């Protein structure tokens, strides 16, 4: 760890290959990039750090020709570029790996890589394409089977396909937009190795991220952006994560969660021997039991896919329970519908905020009434009272700091962090006794994570019960009063939060009993 950064200095004096001068890009109502000037040098990893919505992705889309700047100019090796589309950027040696992969799952690796720049001829020479892909993958040490179907690959390998796509087009500048967001820890290590090798080959890498430790680990130079502007450009040797976080957010940020002492109340939630199957009728939860007390956060730790999703969906009524019971405040709520569960006083933050948490084509105000649009606070004799909807939306948007503070925007137009705030506002607004939070901070930036953690702890201190499912062990460790480790649909152990260690939990997560 940390070695790639050390090699950067020898190339730092080279002239820049790509330069941005005074780029400004406006969208209706927002200035996404405001007079941004940056450069990228061969053999250097230049990290662009900023919160969601700081304008990093917009800037990269300008470099890649997807957006046209309103002002300013992009230069490649000193010559001004007219980027009227991605094909122009590609032709000038700029490659981009988008945060959401631009791949076609039903096609093969080779087809995906050569698409748009296929070997010449009317006929598509798949064999030649595969051979060329093989050659490039060997040249860059990026092993891949050209004949595999992209939809069958792991996320890490799909990203590899994206990187190869850029080099097939002879990219000399590689933009990586939040490349680690979708990867597992070991895939992230692989990616960093790859980046170090590319750097040694003289590739200029733009590394977009909002994760402080990653940036500190791999970057040769760090540029921090906030609200569309460049705040500062620094070397990693002259800064630290705390300073970066403060610059990113624009104020003093608390990286360490402050938690009041654990004062457990009576048991509120009692899950007994729960068995739940997935959609293929395969049992995913095999006799899970746990209790959650008032004033307690129970962290559910585990490797993804060990039954967490099924367990949570069964509790909130989205999935049938095969056997076992869920008691809530002494009442059997097993098998109730999601609406009945919600009415009983249980709120739910789903892990897929765009798919399950929000209706992206609805406004923020409409999303805020999804759970009780027919309740007495909103509806009168079956009609929705839109005055009340607006009032609630104004109040909640202000209270939860949703930006921009405009309830009539479509939820789909908000950044991830603000989308999560809308869900949080809706679910907390129901005054729940029990909150289930599934990966509540996934993909969010420091500021938003800090905010959500604060809100969860507030709820706990008010004497409510919280079930927190997270794949981030750090998050589990810093918030939980008790930690339940799930493996293959069974609880391996439940350990007190203050006695748990990373290592102990890690072993339990892999199925080793009794060692925490």
């Amino acid at each position, binding site marked *: 760890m940390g070695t790639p950064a050390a090699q950067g200095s020898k190339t730092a004096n080279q002239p820049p290959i790509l330069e941005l001068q005074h780029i400004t890009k406006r969208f209706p109502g927002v200035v996404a990039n405001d007079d941004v000037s940056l450069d990228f040098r061969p053999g250097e990893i230049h990290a662009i750090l900023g919160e969601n919505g700081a304008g990093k992705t917009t800037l990269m*889309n300008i470099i*890649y020709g*997807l*957006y*046209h700047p309103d002002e300013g100019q992009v230069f490649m090796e000193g010559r001004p570029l007219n980027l009227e*589309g*991605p*094909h122009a950027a*590609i032709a000038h040696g700029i490659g*981009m790996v*988008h945060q959401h*992969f*631009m*791949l*076609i*799952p*039903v*096609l093969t690796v080779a*087809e995906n890589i050569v*698409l*748009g*720049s*296929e070997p010449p*001829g*009317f*006929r*598509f020479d798949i064999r030649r394409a595969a051979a060329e892909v093989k050659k490039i993958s060997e040249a860059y040490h990026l092993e891949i089977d050209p004949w595999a179907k992209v939809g069958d690959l792991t996320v890490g390998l799909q990203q590899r396909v994206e990187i190869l*796509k850029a080099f097939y087009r002879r990219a000399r500048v590689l933009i990586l937009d939040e490349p680690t967001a979708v990867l597992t820890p070991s895939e992230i290590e692989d990616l960093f190795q790859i980046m170090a090798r590319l750097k040694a080959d003289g590739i200029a890498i733009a590394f977009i991220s909002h994760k402080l430790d990653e940036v500190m680990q791999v970057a040769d130079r760090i540029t921090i952006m906030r609200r569309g502007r460049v705040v500062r450009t620094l070397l990693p040797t002259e800064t630290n994560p705390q300073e970066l976080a403060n610059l990113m957010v624009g104020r003093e940020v608390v990286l360490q969660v402050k938690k009041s002492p654990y004062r457990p109340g009576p048991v509120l939630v009692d899950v007994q021997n729960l068995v739940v199957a997935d959609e293929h009728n395969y049992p995913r939860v095999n006799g899970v039991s746990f209790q959650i007390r008032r004033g307690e956060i129970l962290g559910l730790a585990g490797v993804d896919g060990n039954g967490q999703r099924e367990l949570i969906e069964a509790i909130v009524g989205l999935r049938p329970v095969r056997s076992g019971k869920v008691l809530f405040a002494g009442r059997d709520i097993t098998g109730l519908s999601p609406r009945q569960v919600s009415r009983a006083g249980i709120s739910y933050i789903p892990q897929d905020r765009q798919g399950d948490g929000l209706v992206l084509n609805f406004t923020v105000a409409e999303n805020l009434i999804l759970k009780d649009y027919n309740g007495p606070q909103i509806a009168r004799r079956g009609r929705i009272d839109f005055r009340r909807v607006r009032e609630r939306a104004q109040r909640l948007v202000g209270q939860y700091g949703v930006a921009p503070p405009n309830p009539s925007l479509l939820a789909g137009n908000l950044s991830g962090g603000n989308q999560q705030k809308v869900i949080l506002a809706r679910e907390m607004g129901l005054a729940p006794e029990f909150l289930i939070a599934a990966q509540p901070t996934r993909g969010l930036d420091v500021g938003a994570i800090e905010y959500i953690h604060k809100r969860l702890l507030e709820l706990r201190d008010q004497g409510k019960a919280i079930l927190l499912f997270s794949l981030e062990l750090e998050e589990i460790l810093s918030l939980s009063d008790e930690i339940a480790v799930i493996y293959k649909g069974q609880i391996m152990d439940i350990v007190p939060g203050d006695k748990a260690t990373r290592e102990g939990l890690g072993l339990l997560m892999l199925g080793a009993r009794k060692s925490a």
Partner: protein
Amino acid sequence: MSGLLAIFGNMQLWASTLSLSVPLVLPALGGTFSERTGVVNIAMEGIMLIGAFFAVFFSSLTMNPWVGLLGAVVAGGIMAVIFAWAAIRLRSDQVIIGMAVNIFASGLTAYLLNTIFGFGGTPVNTPMLPHLNWPWLGRIPVLGPLLNDQSILVYITLLLVVAGHFFLFHTRLGLRMRAVGENPEAADTAGINVYRIRYLGVLISGFLSALAGAYLSIGVLNSFEVDMTNGRGYIALAAMIFGRWTPFGSFGAALLFGFASALSMPLQSSVAAKNLVQMLPYVVTILALIGVGGKSVAPAADGVPYEAEK
């Protein structure tokens, strides 16, 4: 039993299966191209009708069926471009625009039929496209009676199916078309012009639908009648889905529907419930669509308009 044997053993049944399939195969193949690029072309019904009318119009005007065929393809192409412009550039709802085209085509052709040809219908001396009759082909058992003495468009259709398969799966343009229908954004970032590819897909479906229309009016008949396509454009869409958006699959499914139509003819004379038998092709269509024979997966971006960033 012997009655059934007489029906199924009769080569006439199989020959008419082929000839009845052609006006389904062509639009099904066309729909495959259109939907593979991401445009649901329900307007093929109307484009077929326009093709059918203009085939007769130009054929009778010039007394040359080939000019009729060309006129049909040009008229169908124009209609397809209008549809494509609304569906691709204006990003209108593809199904609604398609329905509008169909209603428009039905009204337009009925109006033109009456104003140009009057109430007597199209001229009885309108020349037809030739049927090919090779004595050597006729002498081959099974294949001979099946393939010989069919309209020239039957042979062209068979060639187009093979060419369509090659084009879609073995050319660069075909790869790009499939990519655009699956993930237009990915295609765009790979430097492909999504709009141009989609126009091409719709245009191909327009040409093929118009060809099917011409087959109906100057291939098997030499006249145009109001609404003579009779829903074949829609059945072709079903064939395309049943055929999993592939040229050979669409061809096979269209043959099945053609067989159902061909079968309903001899059955009508031997079975009492004549109306029930006439339902056969449509029953087969419904069975195919509700997924008998497995679930088929549409191109991921089928029917979704694409808007490039600015």
